[in-house]
């Protein structure tokens, strides 16, 4: 049995293995490395941010004065190498110039043509480069790979103008090509889940074995005890027979209190509804409404009335009245039991 459990566990482990892949947020270690991008010769490529190529393939100046800005375009791909399916891909284009931030306004470029990629968001920003002291207009394209294999980001045309409108121009960032690798495996997670599954399997096996052991060891069932087959009527009759004790001990009022309770209990059972909280007159009315046998109703009423007289009026019944009341109720209940 144990061997079977271990075999099952191993099978589960193997089957579950491909299902555990790492989520993008779990891969900070690959962020910032060089991307495996391809670019045609002579065009601006995405390179390391430390020494990017210029992207001024088609820089147009409408006025010669604009040349003093020495505008250039660059692109970066993050991560720069080994992009896996599920990684968040950031494609950044930057237009930089010699001067101040507000001097040139850069229009947000149209989204590039994408292949095997899905654009999630475009984040524009402006900053001054601390190394070169150039003003930078930056657009970050957040993307996800769709499946493993070759991917492509089309060229991007960026247009810009002087703030005072005296000059304008544009430049083109060349396309990017790169390979998306299969999803990464999260070995830590696989290990934890496998251990959990293993634990569950072991526990299940232990419980199963324990149950099997108990069933096997359980002694043969003893012959069923005689079921309590007495009806409510018989139980009331049983209680009636024990009531003579009250009389012997001279507890007459307790005797009649109990007698009234048993009579109400009998009526509750007989009528299928709780009558114990009703008064004598209410019980009489309820029985009238239910078309209870008039003769028996009167007998019950007489018993309850006698009980009330003893309980509430200080009436001291004779010995024969006690016996008679007890007998009357017993006969009444026995007759109903036969019915």
């Amino acid at each position, binding site marked *: 049995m144990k061997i079977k459990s271990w075999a099952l566990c191993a099978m589960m482990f193997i089957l579950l293995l491909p299902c555990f892949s790492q989520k993008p947020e779990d891969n900070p270690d690959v962020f910032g490395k060089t991307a495996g991008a391809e670019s045609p010769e002579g065009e601006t490529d995405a390179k390391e941010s430390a020494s990017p190529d210029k992207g001024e393939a088609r820089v147009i100046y409408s006025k010669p004065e604009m040349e003093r800005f020495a505008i250039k375009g660059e692109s970066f791909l993050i991560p720069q190498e080994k992009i896996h399916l599920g990684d968040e891909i950031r494609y950044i284009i930057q237009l930089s110039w010699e001067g101040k931030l507000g001097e040139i306004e850069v229009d947000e470029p149209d989204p590039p043509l994408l292949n095997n990629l899905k654009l999630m968001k475009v984040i524009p920003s402006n900053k001054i480069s601390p190394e070169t002291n150039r003003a930078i207009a930056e657009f970050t394209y957040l993307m996800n790979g769709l499946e493993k294999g070759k991917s492509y980001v089309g060229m991007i045309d960026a247009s810009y103008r002087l703030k005072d409108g005296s000059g304008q121009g544009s430049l083109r960032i060349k396309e990017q090509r790169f390979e998306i690798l299969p999803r990464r495996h999260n070995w830590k997670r696989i290990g934890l889940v496998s251990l959990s599954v293993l634990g569950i399997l072991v526990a299940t096996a232990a419980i199963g074995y324990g149950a099997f052991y108990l069933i096997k060891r359980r002694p043969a069932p003893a012959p069923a005890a005689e079921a309590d087959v007495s009806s409510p009527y018989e139980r009331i009759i049983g209680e009636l027979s024990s009531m003579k004790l009250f009389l012997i001990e001279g507890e007459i009022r307790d005797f009649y209190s109990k007698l009234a309770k048993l009579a109400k209990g009998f009526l509750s059972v007989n009528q299928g509804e709780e009558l*114990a909280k*009703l*008064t004598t007159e209410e019980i009489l009315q309820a029985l009238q409404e239910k078309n209870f046998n008039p003769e028996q109703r009167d007998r019950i009423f007489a018993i309850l009335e006698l009980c009330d007289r003893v309980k*509430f*009026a200080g009436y001291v019944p004779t010995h024969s009245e006690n016996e008679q009341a007890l007998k009357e109720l017993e006969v009444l209940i026995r007759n109903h039991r036969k019915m």
Partner: protein
Amino acid sequence: MNPEMAAIHEKVKEESVFVDKLTAEIGKVIVGQRYLIERLLIAMLTNGHILIEGVPGLAKTLAVKTLAKAIRARFQRIQFTPDLLPADLMGTMIYNQKEGTFFPKKGPLFSNLILADEINRAPAKAQSALLEAMQEHQVTIGDTTFPLEEPFMVLATQNPIEQEGTYPLPEAQIDRFMLKLHVTYPNKKEEREIMERMAGSAPREPDTVIAPADIIRARDVVNRIYVDEKIKNYIVDIVFATREPETYKIDVGKYIEYGASPRASIYLTQAARAYAFLRHRGHVTPDDVKAIGMDVLRHRVIITYEAEADELTSEDIIRKIFDEVEVP
């Protein structure tokens, strides 16, 4: 039965003979309204007062008037209005020019049966004058205090329909009424009989059955009616269940703002005794307590807004309590 108890039973049977005669005599004039007539007798036998709520035209005045005639008592009907003054009820001191002295001119309160019609139409000043007389059974005019004639019973009526321009009785004042009755319309058969009896000919006059002194004597007998310990405990349980329903596992706690006052226990015992007297019994049973319980408690259990929101009345709450508290 012990001799003392037997004597009470005999005395009750002897003294309560008039009850059936009186009921029959009133029945000659009033059609139906057995509930109202019975409660009038209970209040009279226990020195209590009644607040009646019911729409107009239900023979409330006629019932009291007939009762007064049947017991040879003096009856006064006082219509309460917003300009009613205490002196209009109690009387005032009048100057006798001839003798040069003041003498008291007694007001309508100096009667046996007072019908305070639409009591909530008069302001608090007039209401409290009446309620003081109810409580003390005496009236002070000027410097002189005059005891009121026994039996003295006040029946105050309230119209539940019109509430505009009224001065509702404060809870503390309402508590002084022993019973609060809800008088309802007669049934079809009674309505037909009323129509035949009243339309055309003048209503019959009742014969005198007993004298006020007989009522006083009957009161003494009523006070001697036996209330067993179990019944006393039952009454206390009922009253306590209105204050602490959780103790009795009755799920109405959130609907009760204030439970019944100790006056409820006193009046419930007295009213149950009188109810037993009307049935010629010398002892009280749980049936008596249940029969009269609603009339004693309905104006003493103050319900919450939550109960009103759930369209529950104090009667619903009391009914639930009577259903749940164990009968001895």
